[in-house]
C-alpha cells in the first residue's frame, strides 16, 4: 500500500489558544444536555438477551413435564468451583413422571461459587441443565444465593426437546430391541 505522508499543519493562533475548540465543545455538550436520554432504566426496562447467553444455570423439564436430569452427577463432578451438590434418588415405579430409574432428590447450585463457565451444560448427557438468560441473581444472605431444585426448575422451565431420548428408548423397548 502506498504510504502517503501527511504534513502536520502548524496550529493557527486561534487553535493554539484552544478557546474556539473549547467553545465548540461546550456547544456540543450543551446539545447533549437537551438531547433525549438514551439510558435504559434497568429494573423496569431490560435489555434483550441474545440467544446462547450464559446466565444462571437452570434445570429444565422435557415437554412431557418430566425431569430430564437422571442425577448422573457428571455436572457435579465437572463443575470447577464445586458449586453443584446433588443427592441422587430413585423415582417410585408408579410415579406419573416415571420414565427413568433415577432423578435427583436434591439439586443445589451455590451461585456464590458458580463461575458461569457452562461446563455443566456441556457435560450433561440428558441436556437437563442449561445456562439461561437469567442474569440478575441477588440475595440478602448466603442461604438465599443457593438455588435449590424447585427453584432451578422454576427458573429453567421447559425448553424444546429435539431428541425425546427416553420416548425413543421406550418405543424401542416395546419393539423388543432395548439397546
Amino acid at each position, binding site marked *: 500500500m502506498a504510504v502517503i505522508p501527511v504534513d502536520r499543519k502548524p496550529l493557527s493562533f486561534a487553535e493554539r489558544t484552544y478557546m474556539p475548540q473549547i467553545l465548540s*465543545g*461546550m456547544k*456540543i*455538550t*450543551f446539545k*447533549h*444536555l437537551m438531547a*433525549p*436520554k438514551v*439510558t435504559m432504566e434497568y429494573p423496569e426496562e431490560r435489555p434483550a438477551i441474545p440467544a446462547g447467553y450464559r446466565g444462571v444455570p437452570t434445570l429444565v423439564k422435557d415437554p412431557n413435564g418430566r425431569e430430564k436430569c437422571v442425577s448422573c452427577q457428571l455436572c457435579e463432578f465437572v463443575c470447577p468451583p464445586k458449586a453443584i451438590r446433588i443427592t441422587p434418588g430413585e423415582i417410585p415405579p408408579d410415579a406419573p413422571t416415571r420414565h427413568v430409574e433415577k432423578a435427583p432428590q436434591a439439586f443445589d447450585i451455590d451461585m456464590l461459587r458458580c463461575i458461569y463457565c457452562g461446563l455443566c451444560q456441556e457435560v450433561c448427557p440428558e441436556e437437563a441443565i442449561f445456562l439461561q438468560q437469567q442474569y440478575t441473581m441477588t440475595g440478602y444472605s448466603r442461604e438465599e444465593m443457593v438455588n435449590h431444585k424447585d427453584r432451578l426448575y422454576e427458573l429453567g422451565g421447559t425448553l424444546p426437546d429435539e431428541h425425546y431420548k427416553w420416548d425413543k428408548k421406550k418405543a424401542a423397548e416395546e419393539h423388543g430391541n432395548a439397546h
Partner: protein
Amino acid sequence: MSDFFQLHPILLGILKGLAVILVIFPIAGVCSLAERKVSAWIQGRPGPNRAIPPWFAWVPVIGPFLQRLGVFHLMADGGKLLFKEDPIPGHVNKFYFMLAPLVGLVPAFTTVVVVPFGAYFDQAGHLIPLVLANVDVGLLAVFAVSSLGVYSLILAGWASNSKYPFLGAVRATSQLVSYELAMTLSVLPVFLWINAPGMSGSLSLARVVDFQSQAGFWGGAWFVFTMPISAFVFLVSLFAETNRQPFDMPESEADLVGGFHTEYGAFKWSLFFVNEYAHMTVGSGVFILLFLGGWNPLPWVSLATLIGWLSHLGAWAAHPLFVGVLSVVIFITKIITMLFVFMWVRWTLPRFRYDQVMKIGWQRLLPLAIANLIVYTVGIALLQK
C-alpha cells in the same frame, strides 16, 4: 436594611449573617445534587431519580415528579453521609485529620461577609448594598481569606500520612500560588478604572457594581465587555483556585486516587465538597460583581432602570424590601448560572496534565495578565488625562 427595620445593629448583623449562611449552605448542598443531575443530562441519562420518602409516594402528581427530578436524593445523600461508618485510618495524625475539613469551612463561609449580594435604595435614592460588611478592602479580603481554604487541603494531605493525599496537597498549594498572581493582576484594571485620580480609592465590590450601573453606553457596559481579557484570566484562575475540572489536580482520581481526600469518608469527606461548592459560589459571586454587573439584570439595564419600569405598575415596586429581594434574586440567579457553567465545563474538557496546569498558569495567564494590566494602565492614563 438598617433604616428600614430599625433594629439594633448587632442583632441586625446576626440576622443578616444567619440569612446568608442559610442561603450559602443549601446552595452548596444542592450543588452536589445539581452536579449529579447536570452530569447525567450531559451524558444523556436521567440521573438520580429513585429516592423517595414513603409518604411522599402517595402524593399523586407531585410525588413522582419530584422523584424523577431527584430532589430526595439530597436527603438520601445527606442521611447516608451522616450515618455511614466513618473509619479513621490508624496511621494518621488524628487531631489534624479531623481538623482539616473544619478548617476548610472557615474561609469558605467567611468570604461571604464582604460579598454584596444585592442592593436597595434608601429614601434619598442612594444605593445601599446588601452586604454583611461593606468594607473598602472588599476584594482584598476575598482574595486573602479565600486562599486560606488551601490550608484545609494541605492539612488533610499531610495529616493523612500517605503519598497520594500528600501529592494532592502539594499540587493544591502550587496551583493556588500559580493562579493567585494572575487572578489578582487581572482585576487590577477594573479598580484602576473605577478609582479616578483625586477620589478616595476603594476596593469595595459594591463600588464596582455601582460603576457598572451608570447611565450611558460606557457607564452601563459590564466590565466583561470593556475588559474581556481580565474577565477571561479571572475566570480561568477561578476554575483553578476552586479546583474545578479541568484544573482539579489536587484530587484527580485518575492519577492520585482522589488526592487529598483519599483517606476521608462519610461526613468529613462531604465537608470538603461543601467547601468546594461554597468556594465556587463565592468565587462566581465575585466574578459576577466584577465583570457581570452584579445585581443589574442586563447590560445597560441597571437595577434602578428596572425599578423605574416596574414603578409604572405600582408604588410597591419602589419599596426597599421589594427592591432588596429583587436584587438578591437577580444576583442568585446569576450565581446559579455560573455554577451551571462550572459543571458544564467540567463535562466538556478533559483534565489537564499537571505540567500543563503549571505551564498555563505561569507561561500563559501570568504574562497575559501583566500585558493586560499594562495596556489598560496606559489606556486609562491617556483617557483620564
